[in-house]
Structure formats: structure tokens, C-alpha cells
């Protein structure tokens, strides 16, 4: 007799969700290469995702650099290696902390924004209205947002890294006197190609994951106004979790290919 195993409660829903998200992602790839290309909407979304997140990313980046420097100094001082401070902070910021913290900030700000906006459009029948007017709402709403996030999040990470290094320079100078040229030459000397490239490449995937999950949660929202809150909330939670998973995979791949 064939044995059957009951599926634990909730696990079937999880697999259905994964399958639907995969299908949603597949639909993105089918639509992304087909005209019309909605350049003006991509530009508008890039402005919203990129420009409107600048101040938040700048403040976070500055504090990241400053705090990392202040916290690392005593340990390095104990080994008499304070001169390594700019290099250590630069490597930490550019390889890991800058991309991940910026992506988490974006998962919160951009992910919740997209999730709530699309969900509210869904429950107020605005997406249906686009569909019956003969327009492809998926292309107009989803493809444009994912492309804009893939374009803007890497730029925000570069910006956060730059502001973070400046914050670190201020941190170094709280208890010392290091010239800006010396600080930045030490910071950049310690960086090499294998530090910068994988960190930059993974930010495209962060942008893709954050926007795809937020769009999926919003676009498939079902439970009326209650669903809008749920969509925004789960866009942030699942988006943030994906950032860590992608980071883990990226680190493994980078250490494998760039020994």
C-alpha cells in the first residue's frame, strides 16, 4: 500500500505562494522585452525610488560610516593598528554594510510604498480600469517599477558608500588629525577589484528582489482595505529576508569565483 504523508499546515500555502511568485517573475521577463517600453514611466518611478530616497540614504550612510569608525577604533588601537582604520572601514562599507543596509532601507521605504500603492490600486479597481481600456497594466505598473528599482538601488548604494566614507573621515578626525587626501588614499588603496565588483553586481539583484516582491504583493492583493496593509507589511518583511538570502548567495559565489 502506498504511504501518504500529510502536508504540515501552512506548507502548501507556502509552495503555492512560491509558484505564483515564480509565475509573476516569468511574466516580468516576458513583458520586459516587448514594446511599448514606457520610458517616461520608468523615469518617473526612478525619480520616486531614487531621488526621493536620497536624504534617507544619505543620513543612514553617514551614521553607518561614523559609528563603524568610532566602534572599530578601540579594537584596532589595542593592536596598535589605528592606521588601518580607513582601509578597514572602506572594505566593510563597500563589500557588505553599504549594500545591505541601503537595500534594507529601500525594502522598507520603496517596498512598502510600491506594495501599498499597487494594492490600493487593486482594491479600488484602478488596475481593472487600466485593463479594460486595452492597456497592459502589468507592463505599465510592474515592469516599470522593477526596472526603476534595478537602476536606482545600485546608484543609491554607491551614494551611501560615498557618504559613509565621508562619515568615517569625520569619525577618524574626532580623536585624531588625518587630512582628507590621506584618509581617502588609504581607504581606496585597501580596496581592490574583487571588493567592488561583486558588491556592485549584487545590488542589481537586491533592487530586482525588493521591487518584484513588492509588486507581487500589491498586484495580487485580495482582502480589500485590510489587504493593503498586509501587502505593504509583507512586501517589507519578505523583501528584507530576500536581501539577506541574496547577500548570502552573493558572498558564496564571490568567494568561489574571485579567490
Amino acid at each position, binding site marked *: 500500500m502506498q504511504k501518504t504523508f500529510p502536508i504540515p499546515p501552512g506548507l502548501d500555502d507556502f509552495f503555492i505562494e512560491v509558484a505564483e511568485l515564480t509565475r509573476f517573475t516569468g511574466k516580468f521577463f516576458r513583458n520586459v522585452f516587448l514594446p511599448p517600453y514606457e520610458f517616461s514611466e520608468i523615469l518617473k518611478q526612478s525619480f520616486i525610488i531614487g531621488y526621493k530616497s536620497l536624504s534617507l540614504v544619505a543620513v543612514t550612510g553617514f551614521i553607518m560610516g561614523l559609528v563603524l569608525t568610532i566602534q572599530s577604533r578601540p579594537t584596532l588601537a589595542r593592536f596598535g593598528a589605528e592606521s588601518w582604520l580607513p582601509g578597514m572601514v572602506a572594505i566593510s562599507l563597500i563589500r557588505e554594510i553599504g549594500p545591505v543596509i541601503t537595500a534594507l532601507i529601500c525594502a522598507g521605504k520603496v517596498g512598502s510604498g510600491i506594495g501599498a*500603492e499597487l494594492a*490600493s*490600486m487593486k482594491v*479600488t*479597481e*484602478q488596475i*481593472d*480600469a*487600466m*485593463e*479594460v*481600456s*486595452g*492597456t*497592459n497594466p502589468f507592463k505599465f505598473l510592474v515592469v516599470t517599477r522593477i526596472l526603476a528599482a534595478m537602476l536606482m538601488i545600485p546608484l543609491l548604494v554607491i551614494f551611501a558608500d560615498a557618504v559613509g566614507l565621508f562619515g568615517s573621515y569625520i569619525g577618524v578626525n574626532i580623536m585624531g588629525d588625518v587630512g582628507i587626501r590621506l584618509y581617502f588614499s588609504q581607504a581606496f588603496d585597501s580596496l581592490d577589484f574583487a571588493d567592488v565588483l561583486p558588491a556592485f553586481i549584487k545590488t542589481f539583484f537586491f533592487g530586482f528582489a525588493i521591487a518584484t516582491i513588492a509588486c507581487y504583493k500589491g498586484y495580487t492583493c485580495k482582502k480589500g482595505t485590510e489587504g493593503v496593509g498586509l501587502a505593504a507589511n509583507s512586501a517589507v518583511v519578505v523583501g528584507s529576508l530576500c536581501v539577506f538570502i541574496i547577500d548570502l548567495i552573493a558572498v558564496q559565489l564571490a568567494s568561489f569565483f574571485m579567490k
Partner: protein
Amino acid sequence: METATENITEKKTTAGETVVEIENLHISFGDNHVLTGANLKVTKGENVVVLGKSGSGKSVLIKCLVRLLDADEGKVIVLGEDVLSLKDEALNAIRKKIGFLFQSAALYDSMSVRENLEFPLRQIKKQTQEEKNKLVEEALKSVGLAEAIDLVPSELSGGMRKRVGLARTMILKPEIILYDEPTTGLDPITSKEISKLILEVQKEFKTTAIIITHDIECARITANRILVLKDGVFVAEGTYKELEKSEDKWVRSFFE
């Protein structure tokens, strides 16, 4: 070679011709059987009002006409095309000939009134911006809201939203307009204005309309023919005066 889209675009309907035909339509959501064999024929140029209690499947019926919902069984023929079996491109071509005014008007919150009206026009590549502006201004003028062109939806009252929604529906000059509870949530005076506007649209643009409502005053003003939906099927049909004197107590209760 002729495409399905070209085929649909070229078809012209004539007065008296059936433009919407629903046969044995079944739609259910899980165990909830909403439509259980509905049949309907609408001829060109008439305003058909569908009456029924809340949750009787009125909105489901018109959503099926533009395939916002798929049917379990049955046929839906719109302008000679079986909507349920059309591919995306052909379906979009049919949708451009059908206007849909949603219950909430479904205006795009992030766009101004002008952008809302321009949105359906973006598919027409050959139009210049000047031509688009002219169409937008004309459409807004026809619903008496020319001055609201630069406002955003949050600055509009319920009645104004419905009017702008109607202008957006009208801008592609559809042959058929589907109204989903056009007077819900409005005061009696504004409801009457919207009902009269629906009638004006029919006269001026020679459109065919299916109006979903439970506002009996709206039905009285707009309907050439009224159908009553109960338990997933149409149980009564006639003019306002005929149904008002119906022998069926349940049907008559709508008019009391």
C-alpha cells in the same frame, strides 16, 4: 495576412443588431454559485438596466463581458466575438470598443484629471499632443467639468469623480458602455444628474449601455428595458411601466 485585431476593428454594427449576447452563463467562486445559467441579448442603441439585490451577481455579469472574470460555462458574444475565447491582442481590440464606468469611478489617484483622460489615448500612436488635448477638453466639456482639468482625484467630490470617470470612458468613443452602479453613494440630486447624463450620452453618441443598479430612479430615467436578476438567472424582463405592475411580488418590491 489579416490579423484577428484588424478583423475586429473593421467590423461595424448596425441599428437593431444584437451587440451583446450571453448564453447559459455560469460563474462560481468556490461553492458560491453566482450566475447559474444567465441569458441576455442587447441590441444596438438600447439602454438595458439590470436590477437585482446586492450580491446577486450583477457586477460579475458585466465584468465577464470584458473578461475581467472568466466564466465556468457558457458563451459571451460581444460585437460578434466570443470574448471568452479571444487571445490577448484581439481581446484588447474588443475592450477598446467597450467603455466601463466602475462603481468607484476608479480614477488613477496618482494622475491629474487630464492625465486620467489621456491614459486610454496613449495606445493611439498617430495622435499628436494637440489632438489629444482637444479630445480631453471635449470629453470634459461634455460632462460639464471643463474647469476640473488640472485637479487631482482627491480634490473631486463623489459626483465629479463619476463624471470624470464617464468622460474617461467616453474618450475612446466606445460602442458599448457598461455602468457598474453609477449612482451609488451619491445624493439624490447628483444621482439624477448622473442618470440624465447617461441618457444624454446614449442620445448624443448612439451608444449601447448595460447599467447595473439598484437605484430605481436611475432605472426609471435611463432604461429602455429592465431585466431582474435573482439566484443567478434573469427572472423578469420588460419596461419600467411593465415591471412596476408585475404580478411577481418580489419583482414589484423593487418599485415600491
